[in-house]
């Protein structure tokens, strides 16, 4: 894809804007991952606030460094998906229950509403949705420590 006409910047309000070379017009855009779980770096769409797609990026790696940095920054804000490193304890084995976990974004606790909130992404990867809709990722459950694996196993 040709990214030559691609001008991405932040406006005064720190919003991501895309400059349309042909119409000479700035668009406020949102960066959206098409495959946030299965392929986070592939297929990123820049859409305006009505949801119309303005730009499609096949792969983040193809972009010039500056634009890539901007998009990555935007995506980190947008897709908040902490990765669970360790499960410290759970309040009960009957849902709803509270989980105390260590994630790559720090320690936290969340409420698991039901077992169906744990979604299997693959044989090893799990996505846990808490009561407010925040997603916690377990990238590889075989790599969790023994204590965490034992706790997790009670819910699978």
């Amino acid at each position, binding site marked *: 894809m040709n990214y030559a006409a691609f001008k991405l910047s932040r406006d005064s309000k720190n919003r991501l804007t895309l400059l349309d070379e042909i119409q000479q017009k700035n668009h406020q855009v949102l960066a959206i991952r*098409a495959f946030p779980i299965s392929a986070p770096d*592939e297929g990123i*769409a820049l*859409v305006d606030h009505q949801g*119309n*797609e303005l730009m499609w990026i096949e792969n983040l790696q193809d972009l010039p460094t500056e634009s890539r940095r901007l998009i990555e920054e935007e995506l980190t804000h947008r897709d908040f998906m902490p990765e669970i490193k360790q499960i410290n304890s759970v309040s009960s084995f009957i849902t709803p229950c509270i989980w105390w976990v260590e994630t790559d974004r720090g320690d936290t606790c969340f409420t698991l509403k039901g077992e169906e909130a744990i979604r299997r992404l693959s044989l090893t990867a799990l996505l846990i949705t808490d009561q407010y809709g925040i997603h916690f990722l377990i990238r590889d459950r075989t790599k969790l420590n023994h204590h965490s694996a034992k706790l997790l196993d009670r819910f699978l």
Partner: protein
Amino acid sequence: MQDETHWCSFHYQKELALTTYEHAGVGHIELFDTQSRLSHWCYTVSEIHSAHHLIKCFNQQLNHYLKGRPKDLITDSTHDEIGFTEKVSTSIEEQTPQDTVSTWILLRLWRFAKPYKARLLIGFLLMLASTAATLVPPYLTMPLMDEVLIPYQNGNPLNVDLATYYLSGLLGAAVLAWILGWSRTYILARVSERMGADLRTTTYNHLLKLSHEYFGAKRTGDLMARIGAETDRINLFLSLHLLDFATDVIMMIMTAMILVSINPWLALITLLPLPFIAWLIHLVRDRLRTGFEKVDRVWADVNNVLADTIPGIRVVKAFAQEEREVKRFYDANQRNLEINDRVNKIWSLFTPTVTLLTEIGLLIVWIFGIWQVSENQITVGVLTAFLAYLGRFYLRLDSMSRMVSVTQKAAAGTKRIFEILDHVSRVPEPTRLIHLPNIKGRIELQHVGFRYGTRRVTHNINLIIEPGEMIGLVGHSGSGKSTLINLICRFYDVTEGAILIDGIDIRSFPIAEYRKHIGLVLQEPFLFFGTIAENIAYGKPLATRQEIVAAARAAHAHEFILKQPHGYDSLVGERGQALSGGERQRISIARALLINPRILILDEATSSVDSKTEREIQAALDNLVRGRTTIAIAHRLSTLRQANRLIVLDRGKIIEVGNHATLMAKQGYYYQLYLSQTGHADADLSSPVDSNNHESNPTKEWK
């Protein structure tokens, strides 16, 4: 009909006519001349082919006779070539159910045991060894009693060495039995678990290969019960009960042998109640067998109620029929109770009777033993050993009698599973396969007729659809539009005539291969539980992400997918993200686009959505239709604006063909249909949303 059994002969003559009609499964052939009905014959509709063939031959022969040139009978070349006609016509007999279940049906499970022969043999040997090991301890009670305890009681000093020797033998045998028993159970349970899994997968696999028609006739709950519960029951039988049963039998044979070797007379007395118990088992078995089969059927009933109401919960609630459904469930349960009560009545009597008989057996042994000891025929040790063995022996007999019910249940389950496995698909795979990697998409229907049960749905349909042509099927509901599509998709096979793709009968292609060329978009798009990406790639699981996105774009689905919380990774389906009807439809259009089929079938693809959504879908469909042979059914005639030809169906027959303009000029059936719809469209226009939008008025669309 008795007086009609004699032979009649009629000569070919002018004005002779042979006709056939059928009603409710019975076909009639009537022979007329100008004035009257000469004769009348009946047949079952399974012979409809022959009847039509007969009439065809009759007309041909008559024609030739009148012109004075008799000729050989015509043969139907398309049928004989491929050799599927017999299969179709025999399928009715295949379904006649067997009335009784024989326990021997369990032997049919051997098919699933075959791959595990070696492990089964090892398991069996281990079973022999472990059973033998468990029989050592009672044998040791004999010398313990006679050589250690009795001499001590008679005043001799305790022989500690001998006692230690026998006791360690006791311990050794127990440990050995433990190890052998463990390995036996482990190996055999593993094998039977795998057999059960194979059975389940094979049944499911077979089930999915059965034709559309089979699913139409069966109820979901019943099929679910069969594959889920029945296979589980068989599995349990194989892994637990059969194992126990085999151990029991071996144990009993070995015990009997040991008893006879120690003292034949005492053994005879001991084994006396055995024939009684065997007779009792036999007596009860027959009653239980039918009882358990009934239980299974009733259980399927209970499941059926659930399978009906849970998917239809909105209808149930909308019509406030919860109580009725609860009543239905209650009734099904009540029947379940009744039948179980009846079975339990026999059952409850059975077990205590067996126990009573064993107690009486023990009593007899005591009496006979004491008498023998007093006569100095046997030692106290022998009597002790006998009683020890006997305890085990009757314990086993008791558990074996329990086997009766389990075996019967498993046999009933096996029968029901094999009912599925034995069912031959009514859309049979052809005997001579023709592979067709690429097709042009020319569809030809030759004298196509189809009957559903005894009801004739379509009749003598002739139609040629050129590659890339778009055909619209029009007609009132029940006119046979969907049937025609089901036939082209080969969900059903035609009962008369043939459907050809690029000049080849579709029955000569492997079904799965043939359907790869067909893209189907249904009125109610079905999304499976999984991500949007998985749903789009359903027909082509190895599609790349780029392909998926491209298909979604072409289906105008890309942008709304991006709005989902996880984009293409969002979950849809049963308990997933709620998507609107139009969105689901566009996903299903993307699904059809991705497999890039030559033939496209749109079955009321836009009827369940509002007109705004319809326009969105229509835009997606326009992309899809391009360059493909398309057959579209639409209730709203506006959807068919691109169609090259419209086929108007009524009561299973084509009555008009042509494009919109010619059909309108003809002022026939289509004209009427169209007028009734424009009235409907005008009503649409008057609604506030669409009042400014003239596009939704189909009159503007037609040229």
